[in-house]
């Protein structure tokens, strides 16, 4: 199977209050150099794969911030069954969308996060709920029939009702895919300095609400944070959980390829200076066993039954409704997914 390709675009109009990923605002002067470096980094992979990948994901940062021509340029010669571009609703125009389509992008992932303007402001987003809707329709207009909306819950001050409202508006737009992430207050972010995490009980409730509501609207939870209409699961996303090979290019991009995990530096300066693969590890057998469970049990399909020992502990997991043994699979239930870390830890003992 061909590897998947991830292309990281670390530029944003403004840094969101919760974000601690590799992304920067105000770096326009280095855009040119960055895209040049990206192209160079991709060259050997293009030769190996002949430009054909299992899936492509252009993520960020905000890939839709930079001129669409740069995206088209980087995707020249690249082909895949699924080519996703991450877009901030505040940056899309019909013109950009047209260029993306022609460059082979067939899926857009839109960072909506919330349909509550107050919360959007709190998050430090550059768009309003209204703009998100407009961008959505703009994308449909441009012919995109595979759209994802990213949503966030457990936000500071977010009520159960506000979250339900966001879910309803998202579903009303009828995207093919919805990602719902629980906010994690990462150390060092502006938000972590003032926000208090929502109580576990409330977070669980929001998560359950999402699952139940989206199920009713025809979206199945195929991974802890991801919901899709049948057949619209994100291929690229599944590569991560199934431990398929993927190549990451760009600053801070991670790869899993032929039994190695490697990554480029998190520092934009270092990347521009030519540093590549500053992390590189050959996975041990133990690593692989761990990863298989840690990643595989995030998905609804779970893992092959043969990977799991049937013993007092796993039988108890089943008895207490955390997991299911079914024909040739072992997977977690909704309840099990809530404590996935602990389940994995227990299985690894």
């Amino acid at each position, binding site marked *: 199977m061909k590897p998947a390709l991830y292309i990281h675009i670390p530029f944003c109009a403004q840094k969101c209050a919760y974000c601690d990923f590799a992304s920067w605002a105000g770096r326009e002067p280095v855009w040119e150099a960055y895209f040049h470096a990206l192209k160079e980094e991709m060259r050997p992979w293009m030769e190996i794969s002949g430009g054909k990948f299992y899936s492509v994901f252009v993520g960020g940062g905000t890939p839709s911030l930079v001129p669409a021509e740069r995206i088209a340029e980087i995707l020249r010669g690249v082909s895949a069954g699924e080519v996703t571009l991450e877009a901030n609703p505040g940056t899309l125009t019909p013109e950009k969308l047209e260029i993306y389509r022609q460059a082979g992008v067939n899926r857009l992932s839109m960072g909506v996060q919330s349909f509550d303007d107050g919360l959007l402001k709190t998050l430090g987003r550059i768009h309003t709920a209204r703009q998100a809707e407009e961008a959505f329709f703009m994308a449909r207009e441009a012919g995109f029939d595979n759209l994802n909306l990213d949503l966030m819950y457990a936000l500071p001050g977010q009520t159960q009702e506000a979250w339900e409202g966001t879910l309803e508006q998202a579903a009303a737009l009828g995207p093919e895919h919805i990602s719902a992430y629980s906010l994690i207050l990462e150390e060092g972010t502006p938000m972590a300095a003032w926000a208090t995490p929502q109580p576990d009980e409330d977070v669980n409730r929001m998560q359950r609400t999402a699952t139940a509501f989206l199920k009713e609207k025809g979206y199945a939870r195929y991974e802890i944070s991801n919901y899709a209409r049948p057949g619209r699961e994100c291929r690229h996303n599944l590569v991560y959980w199934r431990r398929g090979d993927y190549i990451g290019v760009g600053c*801070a991009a991670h790869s899993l390829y032929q039994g190695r995990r490697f990554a480029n530096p998190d520092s934009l300066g270092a990347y521009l200076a030519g540093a590549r693969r500053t992390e590189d590890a050959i996975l041990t057998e133990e690593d692989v066993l761990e990863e298989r469970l840690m990643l595989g049990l995030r998905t609804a399909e779970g893992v092959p039954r043969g990977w799991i020992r049937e013993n007092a502990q796993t039988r108890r997991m089943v008895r207490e409704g955390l997991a299911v043994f079914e024909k040739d699979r072992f997977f977690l239930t909704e309840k099990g*997914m809530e404590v996935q870390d602990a389940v994995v830890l227990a299985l690894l*003992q």
Partner: protein
Amino acid sequence: MAYDQSRIRNFCIIAHIDHGKSTLADRLLEKTGVLQQREMTEQVLDSMELERERGITIKSKAVRMPYRARDGVDYELNLIDTPGHVDFAYEVSRALAACEGAVLVVDASQGIEAQTLANVYMALDHDLEILPVVNKIDLPSARPEVVKQEIEDEIGLDTENCPLVSAKQGIGIEDVLEDIVQKVPAPKGDTQSPLRALIFDSLYDNYRGAISYVRVKEGVLRVGDRIRMMASGREFDVTEVGTLLPGRYNATGELRAGEVGYVAASIKDIADIRVGDTITHVERPAQEPLPGYKPVLPMVFCGIYPADGADYDSLREALEKLRLNDASLSFEPETSQALGYGFRCGFLGLLHMEIIQERLEREFDLDLVTTAPSVVYRVIKTDGEILEIDNPTNLPPTNDIEYMEEPFVDAQVITPQEYVGAIMELCQNKRGTFRDMKYIEGGRVLLNYDMPLNEVIFDFFDNLKSRTRGYASFDYSLKGYVRSELVKMDMLLNGEICDALSIIVHKDRAYARGRSIAEKLKDVIPRQLFEIPIQAAIGGKIIARETVKALRKDVLAKCYGGDISRKKKLLEKQKEGKKRMRSVGSVSLPSEAFMAVLKMDD
């Protein structure tokens, strides 16, 4: 200075904790020129960091001071510093037996305390000349006249000319020295008699091996002598003999009747030197050893385990090193289902136990898990066999037990009157039996109780302090064994007994203890994948029950752009955390869980 028995004075200083014993000792050293002031760190004799910090003396020490008295004559004063805690009562008694006099230090504002009395009684037992000294007269709260009266009334000592001292300010120090010269009798003892030297302490020196601190009662001890320890029967050749100066040995080649000093004889194991034993010559031995020798018996036991099983060998080495200087510490390997490989350690008392634990952690940088302390119970089996049990796990099945006995102590509490009610209630709760009560100076009361030792070591002292806002003082001595209704209480986690949490408890106290431990465990055991029932049980009967609810949510870190490193790190962290926990069946227990049995709020 030439040997002249009539000019030797051997004395110790006795005091309640914090009454200024060590500071006074420092001043005496300074005044006699043994140490210059600039050389002095605070409390020279308390050389262990822990001793200075806790303000207690753990090891006995001796030091020789030359002193030219006001009469113009040169004297040799030997100060023997004694441990200041009830745990070390036997060591104190041996140190007292090496002296002819005792300086009794009483705090000018606190007056007589429980340990003051205990020390005085012990000194009287040894026929010591007791010289009262009222210390800390510089404090605004000092009331030296009242305290003097108290000493006269309660102890019956003449305080008319007793030195009024501030060891801290250096006031009255010479008066103390003069008192010692004039009132402490010179030692007696014939240098021509067969050798009898009393061992009052021992310590380990890397170069000399185990060293005995001795008081020569009769005869002369010389380098090259072949000696025999009369109680242990072991024989050695003396390699070095001399007197003791602060922090160093002064080899003199001999010690004569009446003198205090040290003996080295290439002794590898400190267990061969028993405190209280008598040294004599192999040729021309003494007929009788000196009186008062008792083998040291640990009173309190607990399991000590390395928090990380890989540190087992380091723990053993650390215990061996500590035992080099502390023959009263005993340990032997034991295993626990819950805690793995560790040691059953025996101590003289609770303070001794705490000190050892603290030294292991501090000086050897070990992370420890300790089980609740236990006393030594006597089990009389139906077949007549008598067992001594210091670990609840080793208790025979109930059907094999005819009855059990537990150690009781004589407990003395001195307290301001207003707390008498609170203390009586506490002693009653702790199964104490009231013996008598006496009013003493300063509106205070002396209470005597018979108490089971297992209640005393549990949390009696903490409780006493909190109920009397720290004003009560406490002392105890072992009285004997008493038949008692004792039961073994097990703690079950998820239906399985956790051996390290079992305790032996009086049946009337079992319900309360069981409930309290279950509650404590519930607080310290983190939520896990499944609900964990916690039960306290006697035999098959459940007497208390709590539940740790199942985990409800954990952090589901987002895996962005295929970067799984955060998730991996989190998993590693959790794996580490779990490794530090002990697993009992399917339950993970943090180290604190094993201390849950220790403390209880009443």
